[in-house]
Each structure stands twice: as structure tokens, then as C-alpha cells.
């Protein structure tokens, strides 16, 4: 695959990750909901320069590393009896803040659902919502890994 094709693939992949609004002339079309907030993700890419050429990939790596820690804390808190909802809310607040910073809107939406159950003191609801958070989190990881792989290939093609 040549450089132009790779770069087109990268652009297509990025578009598919980003939220899209349906064509208003075709209201029957299902809203294509992507995984990332366009403005926030492009802001992150805009921060990349010669000094920090892989900033987005680095911050995403940091996000997943920190997520593992927070997920462990949430799991432990969900197992404890009685459930400490204030602690749960605090852990999820931290995680939600991170998702917001990288523009992970679908993950963030699931975090909001978790918060609702937390506020209601519903442990079962929290557990179910947490499963959805983890699912979206993993789906995004897979999508982003593919995106970064394509970017690296496109970048390597430029130097050939």
C-alpha cells in the first residue's frame, strides 16, 4: 500500500472514530455515533510537534495504564460490604475525567450511567453499568490500536 493510500486509510479510520451528525435531508438515517469527540481528539493531535511527535499515542497509553488501576479500585469497592458509594463515585469521577480529556465520548456516557446508579445507591445497577464501561473501554482500545498502527505505517511510508 503506498503512502497516499495509507494516509487515506488513516483519515477514514479517524472519521469513523469521531462522532458524525446525520445528513438532515435523510432523517431516517441512523445516527452514526463514533467513539471520540472530534474537537477534543483533534486538539490532542494538534499538540503533536517535533518535540512530542507521539503525544496522542502516549497519552492514550497513559490513559489505559491509569484505567487499569482505577478499574481495580472500582472492582474492589463493588465487592465490599456494605458498598461505599462515595468511594465508588470518587473512583468513577477520576476515570470519567480521564475519558473526557482524551475525548472518549461513548465511554464517558457509560460512566454517566454508572454515576446515576451510584447516586441512587444501586449496587447491582453499578455493577451492570461498570460492565458496559469496560466493554466500551476495550472496544475503543481496539479501534485506537488499529488507528495508531495505520498512522505509524503512513509515517514510515513518508520516509521511504
Amino acid at each position, binding site marked *: 500500500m503506498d503512502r497516499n493510500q495509507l494516509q487515506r486509510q488513516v483519515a477514514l479510520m479517524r472519521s469513523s472514530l469521531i462522532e458524525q451528525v446525520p445528513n438532515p435531508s435523510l432523517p431516517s438515517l441512523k445516527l452514526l455515533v463514533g467513539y471520540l469527540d472530534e474537537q477534543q481528539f483533534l486538539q*490532542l493531535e494538534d499538540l503533536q510537534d517535533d518535540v*512530542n511527535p507521539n503525544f496522542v499515542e502516549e*497519552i492514550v497509553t497513559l*490513559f489505559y495504564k*491509569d484505567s487499569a488501576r482505577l478499574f481495580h479500585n472500582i472492582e474492589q469497592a463493588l465487592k465490599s460490604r456494605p458498598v461505599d458509594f462515595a468511594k465508588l463515585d470518587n473512583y468513577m*469521577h477520576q476515570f470519567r475525567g480521564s475519558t*473526557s*480529556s*482524551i475525548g472518549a465520548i461513548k465511554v464517558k456516557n457509560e460512566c454517566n450511567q454508572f454515576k446515576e446508579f451510584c447516586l441512587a445507591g444501586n449496587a447491582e445497577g453499578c455493577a451492570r453499568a461498570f460492565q458496559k464501561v469496560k466493554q466500551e473501554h476495550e472496544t475503543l482500545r481496539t479501534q485506537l490500536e488499529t488507528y495508531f498502527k495505520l498512522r505509524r505505517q503512513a509515517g514510515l511510508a513518508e520516509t521511504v
Partner: protein
Amino acid sequence: MVKMEDIGARILAGDHQVQYGQNQRTKIKALVVDDNMINQALHRTLLRNLGIENHVVGNGREAVDVHCSGRRFDLILMDLDMPVMNGIEATKKLRAMGIQSTIAGVSSRSVDENIQEFWEAGLDDYQQKPLNFPKLVSILQKVNHSV
């Protein structure tokens, strides 16, 4: 005095390489106060890209301690929810110490949520996370560079 308004207009026009001061004497100094590693990385990089020297601490207590050690900053980006000492307590303490730096609250809470207490602690500005260039420029326009 650095003219923040002119620099701000250039940044909003897309010039992200504007340097806030060309030499050590006039360089803006910022303190990032946030317990979240991703936000620390993001805020540091935003500031660095604008040529702003920055230091990072992980909670309000560390922000107070760094000032007790004698360091001063033009701008403090203060998170609200932090362990050990939150942003409200840290802002109150810094103001009580006579710190006149521009303190901008940066939190994931929306303006609709109760951030009145945060304002009353002594903020000069407040922006909802996530922080980005336009929001940071808006904050920088309130900085009096006299440190």
C-alpha cells in the same frame, strides 16, 4: 508587561507557536495542580506548546508547600477534586498567604453544578475540563505577568 490580548488573538487564529516571552526574564511561569496523570500531561503540553514554563503538583497541599518553599507563579491551574487537599482549600490557603497569582479553577464540573464555593475561595477564572487552547488563551488573558 506582556500583551496577552494580542497573543491570544494570534493563538485563536491558529498560531500555536506563539511564545510567551522570548527570554527567561519575561517567561510566564505556571503551576499545574491536578491529581490526574492524563490531565497533568495534557495541561503541561498545552502550556509548553505556548512557551510557558510549568511545574506540576498532585494535590492542593503540594501546591501550598511549593509556595512555602518560595516559588512563585504567574498562573495556577487548580483542579477542584483532589485527595489530601482539594482545590477550594488550597485556593483559600494561597490567598491567605498573600499569593496574588492568577488562579484558574479547572474542573470537570459544569458551571451549573455548585462551583460557587470554588469561586469564593479566590479564583480569577474557571474553565470546565477538558482544557484546550481556546480555554487556556482565555485564562491567559487574565494573567498579570509581574512574577
